[in-house]
């Protein structure tokens, strides 16, 4: 029997990016907030310190910062008629664990979605006709627009100390930034990182082809920075260990580096770690969540924490799972297309390339993701899709600073994978291999969804979440188009050899591709097309606010975190400005 605790103003489930933002914003509004986190606390001076943080085997190989699959995982299949089996260790995507969540180990690509992404279905039908969106493609307009979100995008930039170069300030286009981006209210908080040598070569070649290269917007401070919460960040040390690893310099933005130092000083905030939330306590008649049930993994005791406001800010899978398990909302039924919870799961469609430049010294272990150079010429509304046979798009990047020795070595295709020749080729090319990526949209399809698995259970005895996903013909065509554009740029760079790597036909749960999952609790204009309204408030429980990429109606051709953070700040503003004064539905269905 769960011990019932004293009611609190707000409880936050999951202390990653969105949870950290809501905890800070609500405590600033005078609320007492409890943060519940399944993993451990992450204290940079202890847990992210040199020299131990520079350990490729521990962090990148053995996935030190990722979720514990023995406690909770999901099952997976490509198609609805297949038997789903559990993901026994994370691989294709790597949800994080502990305070800071996935934000501790991200590559810190900090993007905004473009204005037309927010009314995607209307935009595509207006430009290409009603038939441009197939019946099976269940994309929809967002219930919030770019202009409304812009002030929150701007604030999130200033939480993170983002380093970059603007390409559009209040409608004025600026050469050298992303001229395709929506209007920004101002320049980035910090100047961009210096481009890698490979990035500089990519910039010159793409410019010669008429494209518009710019530095990757990077969620780390290129110089010491004090953010809008008064937290000081260090300068990026260009260590080359960013992805899957945390930052010893507190330069890379995360809840740990940009929010926790302020929250730890705030008596209105209480952090409880190693607690596993099992269920939301739902009063269906009152359309309210009265609290949350959790098991303390340090004692085995079960608690009920009553709360006036519940913020559900776990990863995409856990958010969706929590609603299904708590009986909130109507589960998506694939056979009828009815129901909302679990609908519109989307992934991110990446496809890489490698090229070899024997005369260039690329120091491949040195630098930051922010030294990467990007073109955005082939994202959604930035080019004409007439006659191409697909919709969507993405960006193309010359990556930087990501070649540690276990996982970052490349040799030309056809080289043996071991033995004398492998060794000599590995040494020959280590300093001269350059890596590229294309990062494309995934548009929702009626066959891609999440529901409850009939067989497998987690450590608390709950049935697991089941993911059904495969790449669609549309998204494959989009990805091939992006790769062909990338190939054109690589050829213009004049490598000795190169190789582009198209995606396999079926999505596969190994190897690593991207942690950008979305959907399951999508936002929309009414309960018939969504789980949450434009303020991320659940239609079926007015004091439940659901944060994160689980609310994205579909995945655009950009990394999700910039928009995830802006949405969290937008929701927090509405809670503070309207909901606290007058608790109830913020949008009437």
């Amino acid at each position, binding site marked *: 029997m769960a011990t019932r605790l004293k009611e609190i103003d707000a409880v936050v489930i999951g202390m990653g990016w969105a949870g950290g933002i809501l905890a800070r914003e609500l405590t600033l509004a005078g609320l007492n907030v409890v943060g519940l986190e399944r993993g451990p606390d992450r204290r940079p001076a202890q847990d992210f310190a040199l020299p131990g943080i520079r350990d490729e085997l521990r962090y990148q190989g053995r996935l030190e910062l990722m979720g514990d699959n023995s406690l909770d995982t999901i099952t997976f299949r490509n198609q609805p008629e297949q038997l789903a089996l559990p993901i026994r*260790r994370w691989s294709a995507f790597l949800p994080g664990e502990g305070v800071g969540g996935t934000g501790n180990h991200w590559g810190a690509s900090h993007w905004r979605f473009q204005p037309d992404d927010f009314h995607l279905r209307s935009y595509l039908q207006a430009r290409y006709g009603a038939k441009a969106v197939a019946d099976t493609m269940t994309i929809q307009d967002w219930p919030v627009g770019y202009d409304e979100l812009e002030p929150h995008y701007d604030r999130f930039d200033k939480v993170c100390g983002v380093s970059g170069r603007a390409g559009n300030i209040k409608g004025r286009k600026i050469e050298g930034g992303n001229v395709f981006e929506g209007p920004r209210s101002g320049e980035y908080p910090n100047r961009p990182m210096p481009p890698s040598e490979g990035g500089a070569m990519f910039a010159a070649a793409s410019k010669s082809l008429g494209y518009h290269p710019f530095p990757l917007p990077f969620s780390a401070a290129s110089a010491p920075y004090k953010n809008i919460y008064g937290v000081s960040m260090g300068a990026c040390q260009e260590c*080359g260990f960013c992805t899957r690893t945390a930052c010893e310099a507190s330069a890379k933005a995360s809840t740990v580096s940009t929010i926790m130092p302020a929250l730890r000083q705030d008596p209105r905030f209480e952090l409880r770690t190693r607690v596993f939330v099992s269920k939301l306590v739902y009063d269906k008649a009152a359309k309210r969540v009265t609290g949350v049930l959790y098991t303390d993994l340090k004692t085995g005791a079960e608690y009920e924490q009553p709360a006036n406001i519940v913020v559900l800010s776990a990863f995409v899978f856990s958010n969706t799972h929590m609603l299904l398990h708590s009986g909130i909302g109507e589960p998506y039924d694939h056979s009828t297309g009815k129901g909302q919870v679990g609908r519109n799961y989307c992934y991110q469609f990446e496809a890489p390339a490698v090229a070899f430049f024997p005369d*260039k010294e690329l120091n491949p272990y040195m630098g930051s993701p922010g030294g990467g150079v990007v073109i955005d010429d082939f994202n959604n509304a930035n080019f004409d899709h007439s006659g191409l046979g697909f919709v969507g798009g993405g960006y193309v990047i010359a990556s930087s600073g990501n070649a540690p020795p276990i996982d970052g070595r490349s040799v030309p295709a056809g080289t043996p994978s071991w033995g004398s020749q492998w060794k000599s080729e590995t040494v020959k090319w280590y300093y001269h291999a350059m890596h590229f990526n294309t990062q494309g949209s995934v548009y929702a399809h009626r066959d891609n969804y999440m529901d409850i698995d009939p067989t497998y259970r987690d450590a608390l005895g709950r049935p697991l979440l089941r993911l059904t996903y495969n790449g669609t013909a549309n998204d494959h065509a989009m990805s091939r188009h992006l790769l062909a554009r990338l190939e054109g740029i690589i050829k213009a760079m004049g490598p000795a050899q190169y190789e582009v790597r198209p995606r396999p036909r079926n999505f596969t749960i190994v190897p690593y591709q991207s942690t950008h999952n979305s959907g399951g609790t999508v936002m929309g204009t009414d309960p018939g097309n969504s789980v949450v309204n434009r303020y991320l408030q659940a239609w079926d429980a007015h004091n439940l606010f659901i944060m994160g990429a689980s609310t994205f109606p579909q995945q655009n051709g950009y990394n999700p975190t910039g928009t995830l953070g802006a949405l969290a700040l937008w929701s927090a503003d509405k809670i503070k400005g309207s909901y606290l004064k007058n608790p109830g539905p913020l949008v009437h269905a």
Partner: protein
Amino acid sequence: MANGTIPRRDFLAGAGVAGALATSLPTANADAAPPQAGNATPETWLVLTAEEQAFYSAVADTMIPADALSPSGTQCGIPVFIDRQLASAWGAGARMYRAGPFHQGLPEQGYQLPLTPRDYFAAGVQAANAWSSKTYGKTFDRLAPGQRIEALTAMEAGKAAFEDFDARAFFQRLLTITMEGFFSDPIYGGNRGKASWHMLGFPGLPATYAGKVEEYRNKRYVAEPQSIADFS
């Protein structure tokens, strides 16, 4: 030694089980025991059996042969690395979902066996040696260098039919853990003398390069590699 096979005792010498034991044994095949990296201390083992030590040593020396670029896989400590990894929490299956029921599944669904890495590798070594004995009349560690290459090539290509074990999948895991042992920080027992980091020109730690991207633009950055242990 007319057929060029390597006697088991040479494996022991190659694996660094030196001192009184190794020096008391005659070295019949000089090629099989290339110059040592100077480690005369006997290895200690946490979990590997003698058969497994011999197997991993033979694999490591075939995948990473001694040449001008680096010492052999065994000299770099790869069997010791594998021993430590399989004895670790990772090797015991920590943080891995291991509940049934179990099905073979599709390749897209990833690893679906109940075995921990330690149990998986133990079963794999036995399956590989059984196949090697059936095919060549001796266990893998006793094959001649050319036969070892042939056997690993067959496993990699899916042409080695192990009994009740997926040889191709086993080969890929073997390759992965061998390369991890060669390239990881030496604190884990492999990459002795930072051999692979010297070979690649990877500087290791502290990896604080602020300002150096510009300074070393299209110029090779050269530094004596340093391990986590050098800063501890």
